[in-house]
C-alpha cells in the first residue's frame, strides 16, 4: 500500500499542525478491514498523526523522525469511506532530540451529520531512527 497518509495540510505553525486524510473505497486494505464493514484502521489514524508530526518537525530541520512511544491513546468513532480524518497535532516539549506530542483526530463528514466526533486522541513521542538498541 502507498504509505503517505497526509492528503492536505490545513494549518501549520511552529508547534502545531492540522492535516487531513481522506478515506476512500479506492484504498485496497479496506477490503480486509473489514469485509462488509470498511473502516480506517486505528493504527493508520496513529500513522496519520505521526506523519503530521514528522512534517511539522522537519520544518524545524529534524528529518525522518519516527514514533518512539505512545501513552494512553484512545480510539473513538470509526472513520468510514467518504469521511475524512482531520488530525490536530501539537508539539508539547522536547528533550535530547526526542519530541513529545499530543494529537487528536476528528471525523469530518460531507452528509451534514455530527462533525465533532473524536476518532483518536493521545500522546506520543517522535525520535530519530535507531538501527540498534540504545545503550
Amino acid at each position, binding site marked *: 500500500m502507498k*504509505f503517505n497518509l497526509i492528503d492536505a495540510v490545513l494549518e501549520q505553525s511552529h508547534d502545531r499542525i492540522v492535516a487531513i486524510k481522506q478515506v476512500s473505497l479506492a484504498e485496497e486494505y479496506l477490503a480486509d478491514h*473489514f*469485509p462488509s464493514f470498511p473502516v480506517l*484502521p486505528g493504527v493508520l489514524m496513529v500513522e496519520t498523526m505521526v506523519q503530521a508530526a514528522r512534517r511539522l518537525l522537519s520544518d524545524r530541520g529534524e528529518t525522518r523522525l519516527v514514533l518512539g512511544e505512545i501513552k494512553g491513546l*484512545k*480510539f473513538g468513532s470509526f472513520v468510514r469511506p467518504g469521511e475524512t480524518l482531520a488530525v490536530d497535532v501539537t508539539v508539547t516539549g522536547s528533550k535530547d532530540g526526542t519530541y513529545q506530542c499530543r494529537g487528536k483526530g476528528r471525523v469530518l463528514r460531507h452528509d451534514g451529520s455530527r462533525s465533532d466526533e473524536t476518532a483518536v486522541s493521545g500522546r506520543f513521542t517522535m525520535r530519530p*531512527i535507531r*538501527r*540498534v*538498541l540504545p545503550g
Partner: protein
Amino acid sequence: MRWMWIDQIIELVPGERMVAIKNVSLAEEHLHDHFAADGELDALPVYPASLLIEGMAQTAGILVGAARDFKEKVILAKIMRAVIDCEVFPGQTIRYEANLEHLDTAGAATKGVVSRTEAASGQWEVIGHIDLLFSHADQSMTGVDVPEHNFVFGENLKIILQSAGLAGMVGGDR
C-alpha cells in the same frame, strides 16, 4: 493489498499467550514510501512503528478472540502503552508475544513484547513493549455503531489458524 500484518502463529496457549512472527521484505510496497528518496537523502526502508502496533494488535486480538470462541467483536480500543526502542529493516523478522492479562464481558487487556532477528542469526533481541486494551463491541459501553454480524474474524483468520494447525478453533457458524 491484504491487511494482514502477521505471517505465522508460532505458539498459542489458549487464554494465556500467543506468539506470531512477521517477515519484513522489500517486496512490501509501503517500505518504498517509508522512506522514499528525498532531495539529498537516499531511500531508507524502515518498518513503520504503527504497523508494529498492528502486528501486536492482530496477535493479541486473536488471543482474546480465541478465549471466547471468536464470538465477540474484538476491537482495539486503547493503546495503553507502546515503547519501541529501535527499528526493524527489510531482511529482518519480527516476533510478537502477547499475554492475556485480563478478560471479562466488556473486553480484555494484553501485555506484549516485540523482538526482532536477522534472518540467518537465530538470535532474538527485544525491541519494544506494547500493552493494549480491547473492547467487545456489543457488550461494552463505548456506544459505537457496529453491524450485527462478526466482521472482525473472517477469512484471513481462518487462513492463519489453518497454517498453524489450529483451524479446529474456528467453529461452523460465525
